[in-house]
């Protein structure tokens, strides 16, 4: 903190043009799509809250899912009341009443994997959830294609996202600075640091996996491209990876939003709207 006080009052700030128009527009469309896709996706998941590995699901002779990777549901406890539970790979129940498995909806406890405030629509409605999901999936894919074509043709990927050799060399130091929330200044602040670059690359790859695993669940696409679900080990594995990569995207979005807030919320938001990003001059010691 002392170094802030030591700086002259009119510490030089410089506005740099950071985000191209295409990046800004596709960013916000993408953000809206991901929100809708996530919430409608959780609605779809709620229709069968069990994940499996392999080509097909596994049931016992009573139609009950067995050998699942993940199951969310409600069970009756010794007092005859219901508990919301999560079970991972056949392990012990993790009690999640109020959030997963059993949660309040319209003032009543409802047996549902994800709670009403996280799903679209809020009530149980697989048909509507699917309609929302596929509408936004189309917008997401078209928007994503615009971004990828721009990123390749406009050199955005190589210029802004591919870590340079000097960044790889100073990886450890950058990580240490980043963990202490010490953000770069001056010339160094005009480009993404290597942690940011890697995070964005992983997020883009996770979103591509989302599309591929999503298409792997379509019986029509499966007939046209039988190799696609096999890339992930079968249709049910693809569904499981769809869920896992959605979880990674949520994780990315949470960290992304936290970092936007702690590294100067208005400056960051302005730069993603107008393109102009204000950097502090000088270098950190």
């Amino acid at each position: 903190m002392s170094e802030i006080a030591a700086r002259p009052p009119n510490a030089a700030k410089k506005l740099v043009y950071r985000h191209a128009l295409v990046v800004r527009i596709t960013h916000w469309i993408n953000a809206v799509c991901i929100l809708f896709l996530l919430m409608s996706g959780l609605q779809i998941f709620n229709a069968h809250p069990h994940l499996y590995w392999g080509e097909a699901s596994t049931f016992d002779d009573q139609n009950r899912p067995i050998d699942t990777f993940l199951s969310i549901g409600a069970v009756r406890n010794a007092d005859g009341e219901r508990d919301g539970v999560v079970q991972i790979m056949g392990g012990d129940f993790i009690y999640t009443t109020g959030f997963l498995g059993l949660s309040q909806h319209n003032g009543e406890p409802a047996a549902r994997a994800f709670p009403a405030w996280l799903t679209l629509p809020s009530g149980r409605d697989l048909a509507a959830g699917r309609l929302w999901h596929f509408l936004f999936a189309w917008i997401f894919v078209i928007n994503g294609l615009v971004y990828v074509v721009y990123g390749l043709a406009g050199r955005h990927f190589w210029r802004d996202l591919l870590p340079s050799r000097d960044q790889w060399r100073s990886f450890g130091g950058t990580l240490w600075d980043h963990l202490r929330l010490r953000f770069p200044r001056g010339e160094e602040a005009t480009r993404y640091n290597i942690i940011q670059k890697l995070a964005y690359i992983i997020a883009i790859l996770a979103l591509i996996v989302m599309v591929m695993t999503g298409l792997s669940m379509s019986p029509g696409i499966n007939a046209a491209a039988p190799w696609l679900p096999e890339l992930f080990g079968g249709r049910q594995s693809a569904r499981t990876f769809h869920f896992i990569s959605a979880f990674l995207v949520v994780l990315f979005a949470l960290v992304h939003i936290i970092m936007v807030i702690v590294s100067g919320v208005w400056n960051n938001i302005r730069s993603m709207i107008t393109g102009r990003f204000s950097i502090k001059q000088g270098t950190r010691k």
Partner: protein
Amino acid sequence: MSQRLLVNRRRFLTLAGGGASGLLLAGCDSWSTPTSTFRTVLDQTDKLTEAAQRLVLGDQTLAREFTEADISLHFRANGSTEIDDPEYNRMAAAGFADYRLEISGLVQRPLSLSLDDLRALPARTQITRHDCVEGWSSIGKWTGPQLSSVLDMAGLLPGARYVMFYCWDQLNQARLGRLHYYESVGMEDALHAQTILAHAINDEILPIRHGAPLRLRVERQLGYKHAKFLRGIEVVASFADIGEGKGGYYEDGDGYEWYAGI
């Protein structure tokens, strides 16, 4: 103390989450109802999806077929698994000896086929993956005549575009009341090589829970298109005047997509 803390935190999380998504959801919930205007926008997505899939799929492409080793130990039975209809149950008790499948509509020769007639037709056997709209899959081996053979016997008339399937099972639809199940497919799927009227699963006579005595297989679409307990087939030019005009029980009642390739 921890109990109280948990409850408070839970309530706080619920309130915070609810507040943030509440506005969005309230709007989207009312936009999602089957009668809302925006629903027609949502419904158009299915047409776009169908057009795009047909472009990459073509009419003839087969769904992947699996091996005996891939067959699910327990193929999940879904939808109606028993039938509350005295006439059906009397037929079932008699081994469906007097069962008839009626073929009507835009055909040159309306037909009434017994199970023996259907079994006498050249059969196709295929091991395929059944994908339910809910998200699960089961792999089973199905045997039965191709729908195209039956349609050939009847002879299609000009204008034939869709094939309707009427079923013995009844379901309680929240909005429309108690209805017999019905479904439909377009001609490209009706004439597809893997579209069969299955009378056997895994080399055994089709049991009631899987739709005895006859169920449709449309391998490139989701489970709800695979009508069970078939009673009649009608070839039509349009299904606009059938039910609510969307082509099937789940399409009319709950707003599921007519094209179920995704």
